[in-house]
């Protein structure tokens, strides 16, 4: 049974890929003047890489949000679905979001790694990587957060195809990554890029592949501090924040290092809620609180982006 509308969709439950795709189509159908679906490419197994575009005018700068590049992190795709509904609900009602959407487009890729996500629903709930076979190996898939051309192949990624952090044979070898690369380049005017993962309660900015601070570190740190304060204000969830290499570990070939080097100054990555009991298996009753608190920090980042043109 499919929900008749996005009002009937159960945001407090996990959903399959087809259910999320149906949700995307329904949201577009219900909000034709605000939301459209663009397909930025195909996954290795031929699935469409769907991106929701929220737009109120032409030729706007853009803000990118992606959820679920690591397929087993189900709370991220679930949060992305909630964000999509939140945007259409709040536009015209919430002054801050309305102001953002009156000057920026928001792009939201809810299922960034659809092959992996489908695999977690059908074959292996613990699958993290893409599903592209590796030539000369029995192991399958690449860690799409080590596959970007930013310190690619350096420390903090693995050259072993069987590793969960296998970087892939070359940068942007994964169609799911290459599609975003092509989109970012062709758009040419993205001002913020937020990639959402779970779990360990962190808000991070570049760099991961080098200890050299990025040139905007002071500003990004201040934004992260405010974003985390907003997040914590709702349920008291404590986050750490800082550069990837300082707060968590050295990671080469990461998403936001690449976007930052492409000139997207406001590049951030989240690690969502950790209850300390469930890891990647966050109970579904945690989806909405997680999405709600994350949304507050997303609003800080988007609002700062709006107010600080560059």
């Amino acid at each position: 049974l499919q929900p008749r509308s996005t009002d009937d969709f159960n945001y407090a439950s996990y959903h399959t890929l087809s259910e999320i795709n149906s949700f995307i189509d329904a949201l577009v159908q219900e909000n034709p003047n605000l939301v459209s679906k663009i397909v930025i490419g195909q996954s290795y197994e031929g699935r469409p890489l769907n991106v929701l575009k929220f737009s109120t005018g032409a030729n706007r700068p853009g803000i990118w949000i992606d959820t679920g590049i690591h397929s087993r992190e189900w709370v991220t795709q679930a949060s992305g679905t909630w964000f999509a509904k939140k945007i259409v609900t709040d536009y015209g009602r919430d002054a801050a979001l309305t102001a953002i959407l009156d000057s920026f487009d928001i792009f939201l890729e809810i299922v960034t790694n659809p092959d992996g996500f489908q695999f977690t629903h059908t074959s292996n709930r613990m699958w993290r990587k893409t599903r592209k076979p590796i030539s000369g190996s029995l192991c399958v898939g690449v860690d799409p957060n080590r596959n970007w051309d930013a310190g690619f192949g350096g420390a903090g990624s693995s050259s072993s195809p069987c590793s969960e952090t296998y970087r892939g044979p070359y940068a942007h070898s994964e169609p799911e990554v290459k599609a975003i690369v092509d989109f970012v380049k062709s758009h040419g005017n993205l001002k913020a890029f937020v990639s959402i993962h779970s779990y360990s309660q962190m808000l991070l900015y570049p760099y991961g592949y080098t200890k050299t601070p990025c040139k905007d570190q002071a500003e990004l740190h201040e934004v992260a501090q405010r974003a985390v304060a907003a997040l914590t204000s709702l349920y008291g969830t404590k986050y750490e924040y800082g550069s990837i290499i300082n707060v968590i570990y050295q990671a080469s070939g990461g998403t936001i290092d690449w976007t930052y080097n492409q000139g997207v100054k406001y590049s951030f990555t989240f690690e969502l809620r950790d209850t300390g009991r469930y890891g990647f298996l966050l109970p579904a009753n945690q989806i909405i609180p997680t999405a709600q608190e994350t949304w507050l920090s997303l609003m800080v980042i988007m609002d700062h982006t709006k107010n600080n043109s560059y």
Partner: protein
Amino acid sequence: KETFVGHQVLRITAKNEAEIVLLKELSQLEHLELDFWREPIDESLPVDVRVPFHSLQPVRSFLAYNEIHYDIMIEDLQDLLDTEQQEMMSSRA
């Protein structure tokens, strides 16, 4: 469909750099088929690792021998996955 009966997820709290080094050595033992959900990086961060049933005994022995503290975060992974599936099914219904 791959099942995870008897798999446990351990939350390990290293108290110093020496224990982190030991945990990194543990992570290199491929025959144990460990899945590090949170890798050993620094003693300020917990380490979460999924341990298949067949590796529970050697991993626990390793941790005990080296006096590295851990808690069982997930007692039986498959139980949790079954619950998750049931919740999805009931949500659809």
